[in-house]
């Protein structure tokens, strides 16, 4: 893309939450909301050049409607430098309740954008009630080498091995509700949808998974650096 007159080096990464009433907003509407908010806040956002100029923003990965998150990530490109805390404050002042910028960091101009850097995401899941036998089901999943499931994408059914996409599942069944802490592959290099995994776990227990009755929270999103997971939104000095 030719973005003439745009300094390609001024990039910021924002981490934000999407909770409460805002979980009912789909990805495309969220995109539009951010475009409006950025305009309204008077952020010196850079635009693409061309027939239909648009704001230069990149979201790490869409979040399904109905899932909360405290780890969404968005990259934006600006025309001039801004203080990170001012950026955060100005956006938070006008964002609707339920979306909050948690932190902003300045990116190096050469850094990969969040969408291509993304590898894994944390999830915290709370079921409606207790699922007996879930510890064993999780152990079985983690100790198997291959878990084949059928996925239908664009009317084509194919079999995929889900196991390599699961990094960890920790089960807490001590409370009134079963809770799972999950880390799974997310992004363009390999992606497992959380509801697909949960459906599979429930099916092993002979139960039907009910998305509407399950509280799902996405946590931190990670990139991989020298075999280690690093949060996508992390100040340079930690890298």
């Amino acid at each position, binding site marked *: 893309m030719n973005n003439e007159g745009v300094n390609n080096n001024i990039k910021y990464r924002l981490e934000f939450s999407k909770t409460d009433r805002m979980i009912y907003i789909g990805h495309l*509407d969220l995109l539009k909301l951010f475009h409006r908010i950025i305009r309204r806040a008077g952020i010196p956002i850079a635009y693409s050049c061309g027939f239909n100029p648009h704001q230069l923003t990149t979201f790490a990965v869409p979040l399904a409607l109905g899932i909360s998150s405290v780890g969404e990530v968005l990259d934006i490109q600006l025309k001039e430098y801004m203080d990170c805390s001012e950026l955060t404050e100005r956006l938070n002042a006008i964002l609707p309740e339920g979306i909050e910028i948690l932190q902003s960091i300045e990116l190096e101009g050469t850094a990969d954008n969040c969408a291509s850097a993304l590898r894994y995401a944390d999830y915290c899941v709370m079921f409606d009630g207790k699922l007996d036998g879930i510890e064993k089901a999780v152990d079985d999943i983690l100790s198997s080498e291959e878990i084949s499931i059928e996925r239908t994408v664009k009317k084509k059914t194919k079999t995929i091995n889900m196991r390599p996409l699961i990094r960890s599942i920790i089960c807490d069944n001590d409370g009134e509700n079963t809770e799972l802490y999950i880390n799974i592959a997310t992004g363009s290099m390999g992606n497992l949808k959380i509801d697909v995994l949960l459906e599979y776990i429930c099916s092993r227990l002979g139960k039907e998974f009910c998305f509407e009755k399950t509280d799902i929270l996405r946590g931190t999103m990670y990139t991989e650096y020298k075999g280690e997971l690093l949060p996508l939104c992390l100040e340079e000095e930690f890298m």
Partner: protein
Amino acid sequence: MLKEILLQAEKPARYIGNEINMVKKDPKKADIRIAFCFPDVYEVGMSHLGLQILYYFLNRREDTYCERCFAVWHDMEKLMCENGIPLFALETGDPIRDFDFVAFTLQYEMSYTNIINMLDMAGIPIWSKDRGEDDPLVIAGGPCAYNPEPLADIVDIFYIGEGEVSYDEFLDIYAENKKNGGTKQDFLEKCLKIEGIYVPKFYDVNYKENGEIASFEPNHPDAPRVIKKVIVKDMDNVFYPDKQLVPLIETVHDRVTLEVFRGCIRGCRFCQAGYVYRPVREKSCDRLTELADKLLKNSGHEEISLISLSTGDYRSFEELADRLIESYSKDSVSISLPSLRIDAFSLDLMERVQAVRKSGLTFAPEAGTQRLRDVINKGITEDEILSGCALAFAGGWNRVKLYFMTGLPTETDDDLMGIVKLSEAIVDKYFEIPKEDRKGRPVSVTVSSACFVPKPFTPFQWCAQSTIDEFTRKQRLVKTSMTRKQVKYNYHEPHLSSLEGVMARGDRRVGKAIYRAWELGAKFDSWSELFNYDAWVRAFKDTGVSPEFYANRERSYDEILPWDHISIGIDKDFFIKEAEKAKAGEVTPNCRKECAHCGAARFGGGVCFE
């Protein structure tokens, strides 16, 4: 529980509020709670300018919290019913039955069944007489309130006119009455002294044997014989919000709306809005640019739309357009100009505001021949249309939309054939351009015809509407006569227009048929996929209401009309004169050319004193 339901609904964001610029208040601290109800889905209601104005107007009062409520789509209605959730307001999620006022805006007649449905979903008794001290008061305003009678047994209070004028006095009196422990009846009686307020229960109607109204009399000493509409005189100093609710999902219009003026100078004889909003009152160019600036800043929208009944008639139009283009074109804000007449100036302007996209051009000749256009006083000639099209084609536009009506008074088959001829003349105009100069796609002309519905407060208020069979024959005649492949002909469903004809000029007795139709399942009537005509046919039969009596009957000038106790400030004699001129094919010049002495000068402002 609510989460579970919302996640099963088609578009949950319709029901959550939380938009940019939503007003947040502590409901416990509000003495007056109002549910502003729009009887259609969220996306339609949120595009309505009146809601945006009144929402901030009412909320500027510290003692008042005005929230919004829309008709819920049938999927959500089912979920709410199954789970026992009553209709709630978006801001707090509280049931609207606990509010002081449930206020409906009446934008089109075919939303009446939705009003009943919303009351029912809220758990509020539908008939006014069945509601007690603990139920909210039901108010209604908006254009259809000028004939309030079909809803007179449902709505407690009608507001006749523009909301900015009397609502403060109205709410002050309500707050005072509430504080002093007054009853609803006390408050309703006090309302009789407020200008523009109509309380139907203080009036009795008697009917003749032939069904006409025999008498319409107040039954309370304070009830005024005639209720006069109230209007804003000074458009520059009247309240206008400097922000706008910005929806989180796509709605019909996602843009800043800037109201340029109220009223219309044209006097088209079929157009109710053109009469009920008289006289024309403009905002100044300075005020408009000031508002545009604030509204764009406070919304983050990328489009601004200049709204009025005929924006090209704004006296400082050129200056306003220039200023807006100069200020915002660099910020990639686009300016949309609905309701423009097509001439060299407006084409040039459109070229400048649209920059690249050349969408279709729209003309509204309304009738196919000059004779019939004179009858309806539509001051546009065939020459103007054809030369406008020629200019447009030369400028690179190649899609033209034409709007007509069928069933207009005095219409003959010649007039219908005129629709065909005019459409074909436009296609010919295109082919007059030398082949090498034609740009882009080949020409396409889309012709749409609506079915004429006679409306109260127009010179055609006494006319008979065409029957469904007549409409069908007329549409077929036009359809079969259209032979050019470049012309596409669309027409409106006559069943719906015919019902609209009953509602528009209905009296109190029609209310029972609306209620019965709702009982039989009618709602969202203006949504073709949900329109249930059979329910209406049965409702009329069950209640003994004859739709023909209201829609297809010609009235005499001395008949008492159901809306005769409402005054829009235009003399009935003027309408009679206009009706006679229409029959003779005589035109009436627009308000700026020559005053027609309609009576609107009594308001003491606007175009009458320019």
